């Protein structure tokens, strides 16, 4: 055990591996911060390169890339309100509100530090508990998945700002969009109106870019007055005449460490939620972010701030989605079952290198060295994220200084190119345009957009598990047949019913006393 660990340490400390890690970190930050380009896509682009790399470097590159790009997704989320990754959609409103208050650098600083903290927590879980925890993946059948998706969706609807009914409405709209296309379970085209392109359904990435990004462009154009159009946001934290050495560090990191200490329980709770959900194949960082956001709001002393620029919300949700990343590696390494799309690619790369993921790699000493190397990479990558993320934030923050009349056309360009690039299809750009209009209209009616996005992402899987369960057994009671599914199911139902019944109960108690 110890000897392999030290061998791994030696391997990873070699200049080549370190160079690979450094370059992939830069690449990951870069790709992650461009809307429309996902971590999965970035990793897929890396595959041909892995042919030329040795085993450890190849996997280290993927780990680093993933860890960095998920944080980088927060940068466009905060600055221009285009979620870089679906998991950022949970706290888009919070992060962007902070930007409008001029606190974008503080918000990103919190994102960065909590991402790193969450990522490190996830890495520790992976290191110390992987073999014991991996079996969780084998507890989940379609029944449990159904309730898990319901839980994630309910959280999204319930925590969204404004009335709970509007949150539910947004959720239904999102779910409705997800039914467009060829139904995976029935192989029957639905709502395609004869368009071949609609067979694929509505891709959530262009939808997300449209709903958040384009609708923001519309709103800015529509409400801009010429004088206001030239106005720019200034950082609220730093006085212009501050010339000290910490001038640059202060807006990003100022007060973050005390905050981390103050919020340690929130961080611990969110990271646990993240790692656990990440471990379940098919559930990923996006569900983790929403659920931890909901829990965080529930436990918060200031729940009214959530959705209007709460740093607690950003911190908690972002540590959850980063710790979910490492969680997804647990079933991939221990069982050979991919926890998400990135680990699916990793398994492919490992197979190509003649390594079969599964219990056996923990017994073969050579391969164990590689596993330890992966652990160490998670830690190195997260630590490396601090300086590189800082640089990314500082350079990204220049964006908000650009006058809106210049920024808006550029954002529009990125919306168009970003939605095109995910699949190289014009149809996705049409989707983005349509969603931009819908997003704008929904915002006018004060209907939250986050649940719409999650509805589109999870709707297909929700329906699948629903139909699968009913195919296995016609009765609805079978949804509660297994212990975990029963527990999750009752919890979900309570989540919706309790707030409805509570006022009635309270009234009754008042009338009796």
């Amino acid at each position, binding site marked *: 055990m110890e000897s392999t660990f030290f061998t791994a340490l030696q391997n990873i400390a070699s200049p080549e591996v370190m160079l690979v890690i450094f370059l992939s970190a830069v690449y990951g930050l870069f790709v992650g911060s461009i809307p429309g380009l996902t971590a999965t896509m970035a990793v897929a682009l890396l595959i041909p390169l892995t042919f030329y790399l040795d085993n450890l470097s190849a996997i280290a590159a993927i780990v680093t890339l993933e860890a960095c790009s998920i944080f980088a997704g927060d940068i466009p989320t905060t600055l221009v309100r285009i979620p870089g990754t679906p998991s950022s959609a949970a706290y888009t409103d919070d992060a962007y509100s902070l930007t409008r208050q001029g606190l974008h650098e503080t918000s990103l600083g919190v994102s960065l530090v909590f991402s790193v903290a969450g990522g490190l927590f996830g890495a520790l879980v992976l290191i110390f508990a992987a073999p014991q925890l991996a079996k969780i*993946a084998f507890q989940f059948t379609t029944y449990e998945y159904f309730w898990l998706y319901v839980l994630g969706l309910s959280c999204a609807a319930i925590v969204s700002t404004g009335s709970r009914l509007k949150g539910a409405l947004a959720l239904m709209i999102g779910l409705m969009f997800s039914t467009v296309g060829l139904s995976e379970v029935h192989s029957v085209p639905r709502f395609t109106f004869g368009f*071949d392109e609609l067979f694929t359904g509505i891709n959530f990435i262009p939808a997300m870019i449209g709903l958040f990004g384009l609708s923001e462009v519309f709103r800015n*154009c529509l409400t801009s007055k010429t004088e206001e159009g030239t106005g720019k946001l200034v950082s609220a934290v730093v006085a212009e005449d501050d010339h000290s050495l910490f001038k640059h560090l202060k807006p990003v990191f100022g007060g973050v460490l005390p905050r981390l200490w103050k919020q340690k329980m929130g961080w611990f709770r969110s990271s646990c939620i993240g790692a656990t959900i990440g471990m379940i194949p098919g559930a990923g960082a996006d569900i983790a972010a929403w659920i931890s956001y909901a829990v965080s709001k529930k436990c918060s002393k200031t729940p009214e701030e959530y959705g209007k620029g709460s740093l607690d919300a950003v911190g908690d949700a972002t540590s959850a989605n980063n710790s979910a990343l490492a969680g997804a590696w647990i079933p991939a390494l221990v069982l050979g079952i991919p926890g998400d799309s990135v680990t699916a690619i990793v398994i492919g790369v490992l197979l190509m290198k003649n390594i079969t993921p599964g219990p056996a790699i923990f017994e073969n000493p050579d391969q164990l060295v590689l596993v330890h190397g992966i652990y160490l990479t998670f830690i190195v990558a997260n630590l490396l994220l601090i300086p590189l993320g800082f640089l990314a934030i500082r350079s990204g923050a220049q964006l908000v200084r650009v006058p809106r009349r210049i920024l808006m056309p550029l954002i529009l360009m990125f919306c168009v190119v970003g939605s095109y*690039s995910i699949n190289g299809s014009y149809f996705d750009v049409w989707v983005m345009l349509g969603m931009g209009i819908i997003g704008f209209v929904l915002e006018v009616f004060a209907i939250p957009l986050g649940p719409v996005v999650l509805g589109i992402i999870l709707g297909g899987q929700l329906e699948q598990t629903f139909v699968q369960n009913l*195919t296995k057994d016609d009765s609805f009671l079978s949804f509660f047949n297994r212990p975990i599914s029963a527990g999750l199911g009752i919890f979900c139902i309570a989540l919706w019913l309790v707030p409805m019944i509570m006022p009635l109960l309270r009234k009754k108690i008042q009338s009796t006393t």
Partner: protein
Amino acid sequence: MNQCALANTTVRLMLLQLSLILAAGCSSDLAENYPDRPISIICPWSVGGATDRTSRQLAVFLEQELGVPVNVINATGGRGVTGHSRGLKARPDGYTLAIITVELNMLHWQDLTSISSQDTIPVMSFVDGAAAIFVKNDSPFHNMQELQAYVKQNPGKLTATGTASGGIWHLSLAGWLDFSGLKADDIKWIPMNGAGPSLQELASGGVDLVCCSLPEAKTLYDSGQVRCLGVMAEKPLPEFKKVPTFISQGMNWNISGWNGLALPPETPQPIVDKVSNAVKKITSGKTIVQGKTFPEFMRAAGLSTRYRADDQFALFLKTNDETLGKLLTSDAFRKMSSRGTGPLVFPGLLAAAMCVIFVCLAVQKKVPALAPDVSSDTVTSRGVVNTVLVLSCVVAYLLLAEKLGFLLTAGSILFLLLWKLGTRWWMSILITLLFIPGIYTLFAQLLRVPLPRGMFGW
């Protein structure tokens, strides 16, 4: 009908002639210089799967062989309809290659698309993954006979999965049942998207059987978490010698999923030859990347291959199409596909829930609660003009980009918007000149997104 077909052919011929005449000026050097810009491979399945792995390996080797960048685009979804139609309906200039899979021979029988293997120029087949039946390690079944006997005694008791209803693995299992004289729905098929989730479901005890190819189950099989009862191939697979075939268990039933490379119809012959020769060189192991040949890479990835070139591949496509067509149009299969929870149940439930929410909202009178920042006070007439301008710019981009290319379209749009939103004209030009080539380099060169090139080729 006949007349219609005749007219159709005439139109096609005329179009062909027209394009030939148009292309005559540059076509000779077009084929000669081929390839002089990046090539895209359209893969109809998602990242991480066997077909994606094949496409990406192929891309690396083609890049070496042809000397230009080769990118893989995953056009996923719609059970392969999207990817196949995109690959095969692409401009036939040799810059878009299509990966085709067994679904090409199935989708048209299921009325999901009109394209079939007739609409391709087959180049080479790669993977040939025979279907196999898997059970969990603690399952009571140890060979196919036991399973067959059990199903005979208890029809409808067992559940199986592996892919969507009507997918290739479903077809393999149903075909075997039919072959054994059983009814195709004597084993309940639980539709799932892909072998990965199916195997996880099997290991969690959610289903009794999984039908998929051996490489897809390699990790769980090697670690002993699932067992394989038999593989539907003529001979045991070289990578999995221990797995018995169906034939060795007295059942003469073979079926497999495959993938291959094809070109859109009407691709000029010189280009077809160039691609075909390059691919032949690759599959025969003459091209070496990083000290390894393509077949070596495929073997390492655990993928069983069967390389059939040009005419051989075309012949295989034809017979395969007939076999699958027979199965898919058989009564047993037709009947089965139409049972269970219907496709409109879920949308129906959603619609009902939406109605309830609307009623509640109406009762609470919360609908008119509008966001404060978009109201008659803040919206200016200039703003409305600008918004309409933004909208029409996106539409203009969508309509013109393919013809004029990214640089020209995006450049004019960006300039127009900057100028109209109040930036001075020379500043707008400066920003446009700075950003558009920048975005182009970033996406097309560094990130390998094939941005539209238009008629000028840039």
